[in-house]
């Protein structure tokens, strides 16, 4: 039995490592704000949200699979929360009753396993009930398969069969083993045998049929003997204890998988509810294949900004279809960084199957999203600032490949403009020739203008606007050629005057 709610035909791997650039993404895109809105203080939900958001899916098909399920979740939030509570109950009961397999000896393993199995059977019955009552309200392929599986596998006959094993495994009368002679005439291949009558008197029945039987009763004080006999019994029930123990673990991991996979959707429900409270719109994005160049959106806003400000954020609309390079220039505090962040965030959200903060959004998948942002001076004093920027770029170069997306925010400006522009030019040119998609926010006129002069078909130039009259900015970006000043002057005035 598999949950398969995150992927069409495989389980989620909770140990899947985050991409090496995860920390940079979290820092540069302010992802912690998003995680908090999804988690509402629950560490487990936060981890699940983080894992999902930073582990992009590879194909539009996988994304659409999750989008369908997420739509079901947004329609039936209470049923989803009810299912999610089952694994939590399992954890709670294990804690309260000290359940678990703590022994290394088969008899200990077996008794621990039996206790857990009895508890799980109870929860599985509840799950079956939910499937019977609410399954019909779900339309996604993922949930339909999930409920059908529960109904098919966990029918009444199955619960009866399990019950009988749980009774027999208590071995009230004793155990029957078969054995052969192994190396050095030592007993080997101990196999636990099924006795014909589970309840009573099976020993008498066997003995009445056999010719020679040799019996031995341990003397009262033979503690070594008692231990040795116990070990032998353990050897006999070793496999069945293992089977029971592993079955308990398997069911445990089934519930753990259920928790893990639903945690992502629960986070999404939480976020959707929060954004709705703020009056923000959400949309299910249209993903395109990685080798296409699609990027167009209307009303794209920075969800993290909106969550932080607790109010609606300004949206942007851009059509960058067919573009490999987007260079964003213009006024300070003109919304350049916000736009760049919202682009990175929406890309990650789309790629994990979430809705995006926009009225409409479509983009090609990117094989890896990378951020290269200007940073504070390196605290460790091991390298100069420019050196530090280059070493971060070098780390990205190790990971980036065709159809990746790299977001630069005022990169390579920690040296004079000529050198910085030249190095940035070389880097961006190399990235473009390797089919990497690049968004670059920069003040460096020489860099921006250099690319503008080339008249490239696949480049788009956006400029942060400011209202000409009183210097107030609109925080909206429009297409426009780079200008030689970044309007720092009026910011300076605003601060000093």
């Amino acid at each position, binding site marked *: 039995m598999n949950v398969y709610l995150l992927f069409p035909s495989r389980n989620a791997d909770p140990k899947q490592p985050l991409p090496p650039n995860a920390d940079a993404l979290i820092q540069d895109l302010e992802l912690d704000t998003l995680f908090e809105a999804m988690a509402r203080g629950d560490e487990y939900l936060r981890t699940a949200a983080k894992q999902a958001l930073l582990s992009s899916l590879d194909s539009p098909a996988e994304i659409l699979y999750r989008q369908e399920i997420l739509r079901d979740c947004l329609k039936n939030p209470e049923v989803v929360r009810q299912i999610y509570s089952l694994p939590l109950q399992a954890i709670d009961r294990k804690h309260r009753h000290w359940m678990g397999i703590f022994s290394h000896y088969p008899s200990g393993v077996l008794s621990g396993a039996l206790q857990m199995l009895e508890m799980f059977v109870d929860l599985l019955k509840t799950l079956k009930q939910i499937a019977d009552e609410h399954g019909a309200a779900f339309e996604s392929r993922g949930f339909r398969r999930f409920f059908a599986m529960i109904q098919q596998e966990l029918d009444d006959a199955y619960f009866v069969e399990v019950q009988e094993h749980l009774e027999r495994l208590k071995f009230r009368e004793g155990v029957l083993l078969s054995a052969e002679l192994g190396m050095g005439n030592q007993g080997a291949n101990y196999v636990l045998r099924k006795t014909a009558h589970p309840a009573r008197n099976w020993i008498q029945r066997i003995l009445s049929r056999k010719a020679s039987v040799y019996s031995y009763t341990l003397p009262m004080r033979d503690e070594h003997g008692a231990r040795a006999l116990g070990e032998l019994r353990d050897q006999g029930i070793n496999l069945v204890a293992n089977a029971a123990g592993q079955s308990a673990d398997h069911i445990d991991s089934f519930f753990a*998988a259920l928790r893990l996979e639903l945690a992502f959707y629960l986070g999404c429900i939480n976020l959707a509810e929060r954004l709705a409270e703020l009056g923000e719109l959400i949309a299910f994005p249209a993903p395109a294949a990685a080798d296409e160049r699609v990027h167009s959106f209307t009303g794209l806003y920075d969800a993290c900004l909106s969550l932080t400000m607790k109010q609606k954020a300004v949206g942007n609309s851009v059509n960058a279809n067919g573009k490999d390079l987007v260079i964003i220039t213009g006024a300070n505090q003109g919304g350049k960084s916000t736009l760049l962040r919202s682009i990175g965030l929406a890309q990650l959200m789309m790629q994990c199957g979430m809705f995006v903060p926009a009225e409409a959004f479509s983009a090609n998948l990117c094989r890896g999203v990378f951020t290269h942002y200007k940073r504070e001076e390196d605290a460790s004093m091991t390298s100069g600032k420019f050196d530090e920027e280059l070493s971060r770029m070098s780390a990205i170069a190790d990971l980036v490949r065709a159809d990746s997306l790299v977001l630069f925010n005022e990169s390579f400006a920690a040296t004079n403009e000529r050198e910085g522009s030249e190095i940035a030019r070389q880097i961006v040119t190399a990235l473009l020739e390797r089919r990497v998609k690049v968004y670059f926010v920069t003040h460096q006129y020489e860099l921006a203008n250099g690319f503008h002069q080339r008249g490239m078909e696949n480049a788009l130039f956006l400029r942060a606007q400011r209202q000409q009259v009183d210097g107030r900015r609109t925080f909206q970006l429009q297409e426009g050629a780079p200008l030689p000043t970044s309007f720092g002057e009026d910011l300076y005035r605003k601060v000093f005057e």
Partner: protein
Amino acid sequence: MTFFSILFDNDDLPKETEAAPACFSDLNLDQIVKAVTARKKDYRLAPFFYTPLRSAETIRYRHEVMRDLENESLLAHIETFAEKMVIVGRYLGLVEKLEFHHHKQGWFLDAALVYCEAIGSLAENLAQINLTSRGLLALREYLTQYVTSPAFQSLTAEACKVKEGLAGVRYSIIIESGKFKVLKYEDEPDYSVEVEKTFAKFQQGAVKDYRSELGKASGMNHIEAKILEFVTLLYPEAFAALDRFRAGHTQFVDEALRTFDREIQFYIAYLDGMRDLRHKGLIFCYPEVGASKEVFVRDGFDLALAQTLLFSEKPVICNDFALTNPERVMVVTGPNQGGKTTFARMFGQLHYLASLGLPVPGRAARLFLCDNIFTHFERAEDIRNLRSKLQDDLVRLHEIFSRATPDSLIILNEVFASTSLKDAVFMSKEIMRRALELDLPGVWVTFIDELASFGEKTVSMVSAIVPEDPARRTFKIVRRPADGLAYALSLAEKHRLTYAQLKERIRL
């Protein structure tokens, strides 16, 4: 049947030495031997590695065996044999140690079975293989006669028959609290399988294995002994046959084959080490070993260093040298950390390994069969020894020159580092004069340039640098006068982020 040794072509030579030669730690030969013998401790192979040969003929004898062993199927057969002989030894050890009669008898039988199997398949397999070495041909001859001998034949036949009888024994145990019953087994179904089947649908990938490691390899407590006793009552004939077998075959392992089993490991241990390094692209060759002092190697390397780099990405740097008459001493100079000491060690290692009759690191080599390798490497000051460092240097050098002959080899590394340059130059020249008088081949690593151009018998070698990037070490030692250059790298180049570098790096 004639006695033979796979390591020596005649009986007159000293076979084993208990202590390592003096040059061992300077040349890192101790590390090499430790690494090579690490997985074969029980064979005590080090004494073989401590015993260099003086006869070119014995070296040829070993080369022959080694070349045969490079045939992988032969090697596999011998390794299988060796593994089985280890098992035989372990089982016989149990027979000595154990307590219960039927238990001891059981292990004795199993030891004999493994032995017969080991010998039988080795003989059979060697017959299929094309052998050329005198050593292995003699082994095959010996084995052929041994396996057809009546003693071995009856050992095999009887062991198999007794085992067959015991393998047919099946019994059941009913375990209740404080008592048990033993009886013959009737076909009750396997219950564990049924339980597994019921819960199979929940399988979620790998889970913990709860099976206890209960099957002790060699133990038997009195309860198990009691059960076994009951089983002998259920099946008396099988156990009577076992007792008769033990009485009839007390000492079954052949002495000559036991010796072979140990000695052949000398080759196998070294071959194992070679195989690992060959996977890394390194090459070994069979050197020409003799009295000529016109030694050379192509693509030689420091074996100890190569072993430590085995699991690292770093490449092992290979170097060449060649002395043509009248050249005798290579003087190595150049920047620190440039591979000079490694080069000197390699020179010594090559000669020592060659004197063991083993292949040496390199593509091709001619090496000098010396009577002794004298080394003098800089050592940490020893507080227990009251001499100054300079005095210590001189005492040690004096000792070397009082024992060295024209057939010796000398390797000096940074001597006189603790005195003034003027003194060092003077003493170095004195020592060099003595060395050249003896006409012995050698390597001298030094910071004193004057030695490099001492005369027609010295050769100047330099650790090379990349002209464009002197900070980078090539670890190449080349034949030329010393030089040195320094250029700074641009920051972007350092991070490999120029247009050309970056484009090269990005994966498609």
